[in-house]
């Protein structure tokens, strides 16, 4: 697959603060790439650099192999769906969608035609003459998408486009957006802080924190093989326990030695152990590697969520079977479900650079 956009050693400082620290990333044609991270991690800044609304302090930005760093936004072959949409309040729905076409001096009849096509695509036929401010959040969002797509950009940048919508609408729009992307064959660069959204929609996820990309991979990779405790914790819930790597395939944590599948660490290296709550198995008292008391049970619909204290550590455990609070149970974790991580870099290090 050809590389469409490439970010090379991008650095961005705002006054004294380094908000992007050496970002390297490429985006393939027709890819759905998501920049995922907590607020303030630099994901929106990255997107704005691609869109041309911020100039990086250092590094280069390539489009089809050529630098577009000095191309102003209105000459870049990409369009943006803004956070909270940024629709033109002085124009109605049709005028908003037609804006880009009018700028390109497209003739009236084809503008009309294309606007109609777009309205069909985003399910807003009949809304042409409505004022954009009279629309609901979901409808405004569709107008924003239609406005950005009507010029047939090669790349669509989306900055938390579903952030302002309620849960049900979000889910629907996730599916719709993904369908649109596949239908139109356009490259999407999508920014969100919602890990579930990222997992559902993306081909590739880049997890960011404190101005750096921590891991790039498919949703499955990122979920199943997180490379750091931060990624593991950010993508889904996790039990993160300090431990020590005794030797290859043997690790000690929570006061017990476990078998695992990881290797290549130094002897007695301190590590972080990550175990997904759904990977913790509850057994009888005697069969468990650890024994603990159930402190708390919450019904979550599909499963029960429990807090089990094994002395020294409280485990988050998800199971379809309920163990009543106060009962003493055993727990085990299969070797391939124990994820051993290098101690993650302390937060301070990034700022010190």
């Amino acid at each position: 697959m050809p590389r469409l956009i490439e970010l090379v050693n991008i650095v961005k400082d705002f006054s004294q603060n380094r908000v992007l620290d050496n970002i390297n990333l490429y985006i393939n044609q027709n890819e759905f790439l998501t920049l995922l991270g907590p607020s303030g991690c630099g994901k929106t800044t990255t997107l704005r650099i691609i869109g041309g609304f911020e100039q990086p302090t250092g590094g280069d930005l390539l489009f089809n192999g050529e630098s577009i760093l000095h191309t102003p936004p209105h000459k870049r072959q990409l369009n943006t769906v803004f956070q909270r949409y940024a629709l033109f309040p002085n124009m109605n729905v049709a005028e908003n969608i037609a804006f880009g076409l009018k700028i390109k001096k497209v003739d009236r009849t084809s503008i009309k035609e294309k606007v109609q096509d777009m309205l069909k695509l985003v399910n807003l036929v009949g809304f042409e003459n409505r004022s954009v401010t009279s629309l609901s959040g979901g409808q405004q969002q569709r107008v924003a998408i239609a406005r950005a797509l009507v010029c047939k950009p090669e790349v669509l940048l989306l900055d938390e486009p579903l952030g302002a919508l309620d849960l049900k609408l979000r889910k629907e729009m996730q599916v719709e957006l993904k369908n649109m992307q596949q239908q139109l064959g356009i490259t999407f660069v999508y920014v969100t802080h919602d890990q579930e959204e990222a997992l559902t929609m993306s081909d590739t996820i880049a997890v960011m924190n404190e101005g750096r990309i921590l891991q790039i991979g498919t949703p499955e990779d990122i979920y199943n093989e997180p490379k750091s405790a931060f990624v593991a914790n950010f993508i889904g819930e996790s039990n993160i326990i300090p431990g020590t790597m005794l030797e290859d395939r043997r690790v000690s944590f929570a006061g017990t030695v476990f078998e695992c599948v990881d290797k290549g660490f130094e002897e007695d290296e301190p590590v972080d152990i990550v175990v997904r709550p759904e990977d913790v198995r509850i057994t009888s008292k005697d069969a468990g590697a650890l024994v603990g008391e159930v402190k708390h049970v919450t019904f979550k619909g599909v499963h029960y969520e429990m807090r089990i204290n094994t002395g020294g550590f409280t485990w988050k455990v998800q199971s379809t079977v309920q163990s009543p609070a106060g009962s003493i149970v055993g727990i085990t974790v299969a070797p391939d479900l124990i994820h051993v991580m290098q101690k993650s870099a302390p937060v301070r290090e990034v700022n010190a650079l």
Partner: protein
Amino acid sequence: MRRLFTYPYIVWLAIFVIAPLLLVFFYAFSGTDADGYTYFTFQNINKFFEGIIEGQPFFQRIYVRVATRSLRMALQTTVICFLLGYPLAHILASKGFRDKPILLFLFIMPMWMNFLVRTYGWMTILERNGIMNNLLRRMNLPTIDILFTDSAVLLGMVYNFLPFMVLPIYTALTKMDKRIIEAAQDLGASPRSVFLRVVFPLSMPGVVSGITMVFMPAAATFIIPNLLGGGQFFLLGNLVEQQFLLVGNWHFGSAVAVVMIVLMLVSTFILSRFDRQTEASEGGMRL
């Protein structure tokens, strides 16, 4: 509690806001006969439109000319203030200057000085033997004698009212969502089309309130023409002052005031229509 808070205020409004205006209308539409009796009449209003000398064409009648002159001066002031003020507001609101509040501060500060004093300052500059002409003379250039002319009055009005044009436009421009401008750029609009299609239309409410804040007081001022125009320079405001304080004819003075009120209402109405057009789309949210 509601009554306790509101009723005294309604009485206050009735006595101090409505009653004085009713008095103006009462005097405008009445006369006093030789025996001191008051009667209803249109003669004061008629006098305004008919003037003193009979048989003159409408626009040459003395008071009509005062009115058209006032409106013309106010209109010129407004246009000049807009032409000077919009670029200024745009610069003040633009990237490099927005984070320098000191500039806005510098610009507003003269406004806080008594306007009589500032107008007097212009007299000093524009006088026949004033600073400007002294400088011109020293450079062997011809002197300009503009004090006590239309130009001087216009200059004084623009000087006094310019900030009232700049501030609302500045506010409208800074309030504008930066992302809307980015969205326009993103969709391919050059800086010029961004301005013409998005920024200017969205700043219209500021422009309209700027026009209101310049036109109305400019049409009614009497102190600037009085100082910079000399005694003979006559606008509607001067006419009112003269009738009340020099001639002592409350009936005719009130009639002139009524004409001013009507002119004010008409221009407010016209401007509000402009405002509604631009606000229509924004106002739709409340539907």
